[in-house]
């Protein structure tokens, strides 16, 4: 069964005052994501991939098209607060910039306390704190190093792990990971990816990576969608997309990426 069905999704931004201009950020895209599937939406900046992510997260309204999550249209079938809460709990995100993901005025665990607002069960303060500590341990952090700290006191990799710990608390069915590794050092990147993969293994979570990094997409995903100028130009399993690209743009993209084990022929 498909967990997420996106059908003919479009987003047009209109900008300007007197001379109003329309910018089509996303043009009529459709795809499906199955249970436990990892899918990557690959594109350069301005390709519309982040806009797509925000629409899926119900943060901005699509201009047209449908997003159906677990059988419900997320813009039309979610009416009560209870339904919205359940949706927010089931579909969650990890964002690109660990520095912008934390409000500098609060200790970092605030983002985890927030998660309890989405849960059905009421927890006492102590129970909640225990759960927070457990999930920090799960993502390889020592609660002692984290609790009570402010965002500028911990590293980017640690911040990104806290965001994943928030997902451990919520146990969402679907995670949208918007460039989760682009702003942290190479040596901690693998850890973040592994944590997300572990989440998928243990909880059957579907994950959608939004990234410009075809190397990451190739490594982690079951399926790759390549986006350019608001359209999905290629859709297939990673080996096909990378080793045997069909669309002209994908060919250029794959041909431009520096490789480790082979030299680019034409430079």
């Amino acid at each position, binding site marked *: 069964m498909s967990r997420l069905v996106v059908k003919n999704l479009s987003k047009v931004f209109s900008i300007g005052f007197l001379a109003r201009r329309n910018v089509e950020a996303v043009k009529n895209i459709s795809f499906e994501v199955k249970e436990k599937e990892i899918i990557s939406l690959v594109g350069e900046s301005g390709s519309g991939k982040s806009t797509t992510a925000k629409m899926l997260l119900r943060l901005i309204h699509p201009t047209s098209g449908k997003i159906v999550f677990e059988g419900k249209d997320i813009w039309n079938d979610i009416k009560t607060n209870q339904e919205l809460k359940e949706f927010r709990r089931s579909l969650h995100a990890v964002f690109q910039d660990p520095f912008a993901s934390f409000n500098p005025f609060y200790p970092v665990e605030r983002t985890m306390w927030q998660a309890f607002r989405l849960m059905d069960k009421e927890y006492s303060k102590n129970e909640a704190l225990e759960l927070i500590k457990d999930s920090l341990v799960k993502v390889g952090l020592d609660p002692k190093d984290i609790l009570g700290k402010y965002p500028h006191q911990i590293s980017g990799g640690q911040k990104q792990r806290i965001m994943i710990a928030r997902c451990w608390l919520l146990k969402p069915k679907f995670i949208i990971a918007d460039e989760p590794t682009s702003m942290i050092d190479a040596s901690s990147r*693998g*850890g973040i990816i592994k944590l997300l993969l572990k989440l998928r293994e243990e909880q059957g979570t579907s994950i959608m990576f939004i990234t410009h990094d075809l190397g990451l997409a*190739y490594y982690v995903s079951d399926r790759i969608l390549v986006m350019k100028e608001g359209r999905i130009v290629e859709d297939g399993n990673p080996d096909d997309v990378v080793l045997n690209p069909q669309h002209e743009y994908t060919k250029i993209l*794959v041909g431009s990426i520096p490789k*480790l*084990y082979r030299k680019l022929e034409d*430079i």
Partner: protein
Amino acid sequence: MSESLVKIENIRAYYKLKNREVKAVDNVSFEIMENEIIGVVGESGCGKSTLSNVLLNNIIKPLTIVGGRVLFKSNGEYVEISSLTREEVRERFWGKEMSLIPQSAMNALMPTIKLSKYVEHLAQSHGIPKNELLKKARKRFEDVDLDPQWLNRYPFELSGGMRQRAVIAIATLLNPQLLIADEPTSALDVVNQKVFLKILLEMKRQGIVKSIIFVTHDIATIRQIADRMLVMYAGKIMEISPVDKIVEKPLNPYTEGLLNSVLTPEPEIKKRGITTIPGTPPNLIEPPSGCRFHPRCPKAMSVCKEKEPKLVEIEPQRKVACFLYSEERA
């Protein structure tokens, strides 16, 4: 056998703050040979950008050279540029003997100063007739696939990729011997990255520049263009070797960790998997004792904590700083 163009000897460059010092480059020695591209790789905060400032003698407080020297071969003689002032080096060497391509062209170019002004300024400061150099600039712009018309435009009118090409065209106008490229591609998308790398290699093929030092965090890029790779960690050199050999068999465990964290779209990567180096890079105010990598090193031994490994040649052309390969390991 080519000679060395630059010799860096036991350089220590610290940021001297009020009551502490950040040891950004700590006792580093290596040579840049003539006709080679050397890639410097490391994570953020390892001292690689400080290193390019040391090469340029672009020493601005609080950065201070605490010890060591930099020798630059100019007209067949080695000049100790680290003993000159920043202004002297700027006058005599910048643009003519060595040039910098920074990470973002916007850092190098004022958005509201016409590109041709930079050329005129360059001509003026080296006593070359303006028109001659402008003519050369037009030609050079064509070489990097830019319409010479763009010379009369302002930097903000150019796209990121075009701007970076304009910078390389202007930076190499006087055919400097050494080109220092500090993360020149990290602000570009992959398609423009490749175009830029092509231009860089073409400049070297044509002999416009002799040697290039390419500083980046991206090993795959170095793999594509460089002859030798220098791996830095916490202000120290961990390994210098020909690129092919490093990729084939990294010696230092840190190099190995870095290589294993690279994700490129290649089947080998999928087979190999991805690993993480545990922990975070140390702060450079009080770096760990002994080998600076030992707290994170999977192969650390007791000696690593106590003594600092020297950078020694263990195979022809391969130098590594690690007790795994030295006699002292017992």
